[in-house]
């Protein structure tokens, strides 16, 4: 599709675009995905819920192994297998994807919901021309002639900013540069004008300048086509510009969820803090070290007791090792939720301390002081916020 003249079928789809009255485009409700393996049951996704509104962008952020990719693959039913168990609801335009037959699901894939992946080289079939792969995507859902599909493939490549698309359409993926390949992937994902685009680490395999171009492209396309986007990344910096909302995942759960503004200005979860500290920032002094979060993500087979993050949390208190926090609204911000046993007050003071560069030990002491007051609240339901 181009600005000059979108093809008729594009228009007609665009005409139907609004999601069924009132409801969000996608609602994920208490999604749980487990895999049976020889070593035991992997709890890849452990009860997550979120919604995506039409035309909006949700960023899902977390380290690798946090379940963010599995949750998005589940949205397309791509985790269905003999060894997997998927519970909960994934409602797309009012229909539960989990309850769909394989054929119904297939009709949604690449059509209403499409996906782009981390490594565009391995995600494109090496033996087929880029144009062929684009045409295949179209012809899976629309009956169109080969020549029409071929023309459209060229248009799509042009749309995603690939120069000389007429020639490129007949080239193989290995003849493309990394950024070009990702553009081609995006073109393929957009081939059927999906309502929802899931981008799984779309820029990770690319170098920094290309990353920015791809993100700009996604933003631009969203504005022009009105596509909702779920962007999955381990890098908060990637979603800063593009996402409307951000969900932070850890060990198969969402630990913090809020608007992009909320997450960046008043992050609540120590894990989110860690992620924020590990973003390279142009406005920071060059010699400031990036602080990765110490430790490794937990095993999803034998998960830690209490708060899953407690083994890595610098501010951990004794009760956190026993009590499993629930995702609760942050006081005063109903659309900002967090799963943390520290009180809102303490969290705010620690975050401020982190901002001003206070040493970690004093912040730990700060957390411990809060602990004394929150200790009596042995009932897990007790909101840290109550302390305020």
């Amino acid at each position: 599709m181009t600005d000059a003249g979108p093809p008729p079928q594009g228009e007609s789809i665009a005409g139907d675009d609004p999601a069924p009255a009132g409801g969000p485009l996608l609602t994920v409700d208490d999604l749980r995905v487990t895999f049976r393996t020889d070593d035991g049951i992997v709890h890849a996704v452990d009860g997550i819920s979120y919604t995506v509104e039409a035309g909006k962008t949700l960023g899902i952020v977390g380290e690798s192994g946090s379940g963010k990719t599995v949750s998005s693959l589940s949205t397309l039913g791509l985790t269905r297998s003999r060894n997997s168990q998927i519970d909960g609801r994934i409602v797309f335009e009012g229909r539960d994807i989990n309850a769909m037959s394989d054929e119904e699901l297939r009709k949604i894939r690449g059509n209403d919901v499409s996906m782009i992946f981390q490594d565009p080289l391995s995600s494109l079939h090496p033996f087929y021309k880029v144009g062929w792969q684009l045409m295949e995507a179209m012809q899976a859902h629309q009956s169109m002639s080969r020549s029409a599909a071929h023309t459209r493939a060229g248009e799509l490549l042009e749309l995603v900013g690939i120069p000389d698309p007429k020639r490129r359409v007949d080239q193989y993926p290995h003849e493309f540069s990394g950024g070009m390949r990702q553009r081609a992937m995006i073109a393929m994902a957009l081939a059927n004008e999906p309502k929802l685009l899931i981008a799984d680490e779309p820029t990770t395999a690319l170098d920094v300048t290309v990353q920015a171009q791809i993100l700009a492209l996604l933003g631009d396309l969203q504005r022009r086509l009105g596509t909702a986007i779920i962007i999955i990344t381990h890098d908060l910096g990637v979603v800063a510009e593009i996402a409307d909302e951000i969900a932070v995942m850890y060990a198969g759960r969402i630990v913090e969820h809020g608007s992009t503004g909320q997450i960046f200005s008043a992050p609540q979860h120590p894990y989110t803090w860690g992620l924020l500290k590990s973003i390279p920032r142009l406005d920071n002094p060059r010699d400031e070290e990036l602080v990765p979060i110490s430790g490794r993500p937990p095993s999803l087979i034998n998960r830690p007791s209490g708060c899953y993050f407690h083994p890595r949390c610098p501010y951990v208190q004794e009760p956190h090792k026993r009590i499993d926090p629930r995702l609760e609204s942050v006081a005063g911000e109903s659309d900002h939720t967090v799963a943390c046993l520290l009180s809102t007050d303490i969290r705010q003071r620690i975050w401020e301390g982190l901002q001003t560069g206070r040493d970690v030990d004093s912040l730990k002491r700060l957390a411990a002081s809060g602990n004394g007051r929150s200790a009596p609240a042995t009932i897990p339901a007790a909101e840290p916020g109550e302390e305020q």
Partner: protein
Amino acid sequence: MTTYIIRRILWGILLIILVSALTFVFFNVFPSADPAILRAGRNSSPATIAHIRHNLGLDKPVYTQFWIYMKNILLHFNFGYSYYSGASVLGLIKDRLPATLSLTVGAAVFWLLAGIPVGIISAVRRGTLLDRAAMSGALFFVSMPVFWLGLVMLFLFANDIGRFHVFPGAGTYVGLTNDPVKWFTSLIMPWIVLAATSAAIYSRLLRGSLIEAMGEDYIRTARAKGLTERRVIWRHGVRSAITPVVTILGLDIGALLGGAVITETVFDIPGIGRLNYDAIVHSDFPIVQGTVLLAALFIIVANIIVDISYAYLDPRVRYS
């Protein structure tokens, strides 16, 4: 690409010359029997033996003999004459090749028809009872000697000596052009026997490579595009997984065209393998040399075809 093919062909020619030289050397260094004495008979006078040696050109130095031999092949396409029957080697090979060709190509069709579906089903249904049954069956056929399997088939299903009179038995082969129906029915059992081991090998090979291919990122992409599972498996999975199969298919066919001695013997099919075997028994060097050369030619050509088809199958090869 063209230069690459030309280079490969030149290499092939060099290799064939090398193979013939080696055959020549082996035959002269380890004579199983002196052809002149073989022809001269018992109590023959040294003069007679010398005369025969001269007539056969055996009195010349080995390198001269080799030169004459190669010259005849390259300039006159003359592979010499049997020491034993005087028949033209090329004529004999032409006479025997159709049988070997029928046997090999037909068997290849059989083992592909059996091996590919079994391999795909096993890969797609990995870990199921079906997969395990298929793979145990494959293991059984892989470890079965062709000779034994041939005899078992004959004693079970040949319509002369079998327990159940189903297929024409040993020695019923006729040329395709003589009687297509008899040609086909007489080859059914040899095809099955020759194909059994290969089908098993191919199914295991394809299963492994398809399982690997189905784990690739581009398969996930294909599924995410909303392609049917059938299309995902065939156009995306099998398309990638088939490459190693094509490789060994080329080499297997090349090698078998050099003669499938055991199958030819058990089923009494007059092919290249038996021609070669008989010639070795009789120290009939021109035929041995001719058939070895033919086998080398087939294997080398098969290799070149495999390489070219690689370029066809995998566009990445074309540009590297």
